[in-house]
């Protein structure tokens, strides 16, 4: 086993820069096709990365950090459901973890639980799910079912447990609890196929979850048996204390956005404190730092690459995550340095694909391998295995 950082790639449209689709090698007219994504995931798998994530929301893409001058008609618009996309990719890949994004706020935990369990079956144990909230009224009006109230994202930072935003995260914690209970609602050996008695299942090994909370009640059991990993990976993204509390309570993995090494340390301290407050200090909660990366063979080439994109967009690129511009070797230096703070790994957001994806899978990975700090091949066949997590015991098993 190598001791370097875990590495993941965040796939989204033509890359994370709003003008990435305008580069000559981009294929913006193919973002709704399966082939487009299969090729990217296969590239990540060829480099033995831990997992890929697929961005998703319930609305057309709009980037609050990079507002458009033209009502978003100047950037990629439209995408397919990421859970279906992950499932479409799964049979064509074999080792890499697949983490789609799902909105908890307007959806049914019963449906998502069986969807992710099924993703785990069709990928033979490589499923995860990133859960997120939908706080905007626009999303709310797509469903027209509830009034989520006016939310203020600034509330995420001051930790007021009574704000409407905090409620959305609390609801998401309940939602994840339901996902997890449903995944355990069948014991592993519930299917007995006992021809002598005619019983297909041992009903004593099927469990009602009887969840009842402020926002919903779910009876169970799931209609889908316990997935191969037992518990697929649940991840979240956090920039502030309220979402960090959700991660500390409910997630296996949290994506964070440190601005530098010291900030990474500060965030890790906050995550560990919240984890202890949630009574989970003895459980693994992986912390992955997000970085947007613009890569080049030389520092100048990398800067030219990003400048070209900024020129096309008519504005400098801004992000919730730190923006890295440089060579793969410089990126390797940075991730190894930050890794010493205790971060589990990094989720890299390629500025433009295929260019920056190749810079990660070819450049960065080769650089880290040259230093003996990244695996040369897969050492586990499940996502939990790649993340060093064992298959958990079932909470309902006697």
């Amino acid at each position, binding site marked *: 086993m190598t001791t370097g950082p875990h590495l993941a790639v965040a796939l989204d449209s033509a890359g994370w820069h709003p003008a990435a689709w305008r580069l000559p090698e981009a294929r913006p007219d193919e973002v709704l096709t399966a082939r487009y994504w299969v090729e990217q995931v296969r590239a990540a798998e060829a480099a033995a990365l831990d997992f890929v994530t697929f961005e998703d929301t319930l609305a057309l893409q709009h980037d609050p950090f990079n507002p458009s001058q*033209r009502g978003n008609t100047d950037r990629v618009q439209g995408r397919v459901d990421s859970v*279906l996309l992950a499932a479409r990719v799964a049979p064509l890949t074999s080792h890499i973890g697949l983490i789609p994004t799902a909105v908890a706020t307007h959806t049914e935990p*019963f449906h998502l639980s*069986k969807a992710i369990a099924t993703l785990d079956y069709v990928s033979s144990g490589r499923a995860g799910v990133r859960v997120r909230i939908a706080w905007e009224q626009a999303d709310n009006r797509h469903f027209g079912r509830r009034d989520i109230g006016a939310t203020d994202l600034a509330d995420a930072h001051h930790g007021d447990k009574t704000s409407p935003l905090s409620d959305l995260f609390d609801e998401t914690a309940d939602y994840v609890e339901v996902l997890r209970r449903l995944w355990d609602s069948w014991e592993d050996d519930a299917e007995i196929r006992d021809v002598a008695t005619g019983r297909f299942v041992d009903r004593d090994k099927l469990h009602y979850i009887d969840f009842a909370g402020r926002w919903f009640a779910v009876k169970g059991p799931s*209609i889908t048996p316990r997935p191969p990993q037992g518990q697929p990976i649940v991840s979240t993204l956090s920039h502030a204390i309220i979402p960090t509390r959700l991660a500390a309570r409910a997630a296996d993995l949290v994506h964070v956005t440190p601005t530098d090494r010291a900030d990474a340390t500060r965030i890790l301290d906050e995550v560990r404190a919240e984890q202890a407050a949630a009574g989970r200090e003895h459980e693994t909660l992986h912390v992955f730092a997000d970085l947007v990366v613009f890569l080049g063979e030389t520092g100048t080439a990398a800067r030219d690459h990003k400048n070209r994109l900024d020129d096309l967009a008519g504005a400098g690129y801004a992000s919730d995550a730190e923006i890295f511009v440089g060579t793969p070797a410089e990126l390797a230096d940075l991730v190894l340095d930050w890794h010493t703070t205790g971060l589990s790994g990094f989720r890299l957001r390629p500025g433009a694909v295929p260019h920056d994806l190749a810079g990660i899978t070819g450049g960065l990975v080769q650089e880290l391998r040259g230093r003996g700090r990244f695996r040369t091949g897969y050492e586990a066949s499940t996502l939990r295995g790649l993340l060093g997590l064992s298959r958990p015991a079932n909470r309902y098993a006697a």
Partner: protein
Amino acid sequence: MSKPIKQVHLAAHFPGVNNTTVWSDPAAGSHIEFSSFVKLAQTAERAKFDFFFLAEGLRLREQGGEIYDLDVVGRPDTFTVLAALAAATERLGLAGTINSTFNEPFEVARQFASLDHLSAGRAAWNVVTSWDAFTGENFRRGGFLPQDQRYERARTFLSTAAELFDSWRGDEVAADRESGVFLRDGNAGAFRHRDAHFDIEGRFPVPRSPQGRPVILQAGDSDEGREFAASSADAIFSRHGSLEQGQAFYADVKGRLAGYGRTPDQLVVLPAATFVLGDTDADARERADVVRHQQVSGPTAIKLLEQLWNADLSAYDPDGPLPDFDPLVGEHTIARGRASVRMHRDPVAKGREWRALAEEKNLSIRELIIQVNGEQTFVGSPTTVAGQIDDLVQADASDGFILVPHVTPGGLDEFADKVVPLLQERGVFRTEYSGTTLRDHLGIGEPR
């Protein structure tokens, strides 16, 4: 001038969560592992079937207050497994059953539009309705819907979804690198819908998919259900596979189309059909009898009788006589989460009919259930079965069949290997796919 020869349409139903599926057969494989789905779908595609079909159930069935354990239990998520199957097949249609009660139009439309993109135009949606509070216990909504509103909700759900699919015309994406114009129309995907069930607006996030809209399947058999199909469906999944019943159903639903400005070729009638093949007809009949005894064990016979009687009959001997009292009327309490229970519209009359039949033929409970549970639709040599299928289709008893194998996942192999070539020899079934989308296979054209 004789009628033109019709082409047969065929679909493969993944074996269901019911006693038709024989899990005790030594050849029976997993109902959950993805390899079983791949195997059946690839067999169907090798045989040039129109589509693969998945049923759905959103709560494990119960009987007598306990989870029902005699049938196959458990299934995967419909959308997820169909999206994965799109990677394992190239032309086969992928049909999923999705409930209009425990979902929202925006989300389901988004998922079907996604499936249609990811399968390059092979998605189909079997729209089903439900109202029971039992299933509702797994959902935010709970069991809120009065029974008489389920079709109304289904109709408005479907028409709302159609508005969402149609919110993109298909020509909005320019993706012009030079000018930097990705979308020609800054209002693409805009929708607004208001009725008693749905009050929604915004922009739909999935551009128009290859089929425009997924193929719509409907399975209702009531007058309301047939009307719903005539107004909105591209294909109807019926229970009437015999000549007389099939012809009556076929004439009835096709006759309703004109009322909606539609022509008879715009609704494909596909009864569900089971089958048992043999080297000879006599051999097939013997095998069919064995299968029916596998499908209806003694304990299963008692459970199926309870579903009509609405009473605990666990003290009865399956090899003994039927109860000497009528089925209990009123609220059905014995079996829950089971659509078939609702099909017994007059349980007392049906119970008397069964008792009279048992008495007349001196049948035990198990023998009676085997008899009334229905013979397989097609029993015979491949030549006989191919002939029956062709004849039924040419006689307008159907446009084809949704075949339900009783063994997972190999139950379609024999049909694919032996019956399909005979249908092809008769010139009534494709030897290659002529189009790429499910709409192409079904010959139903663009969405209206």
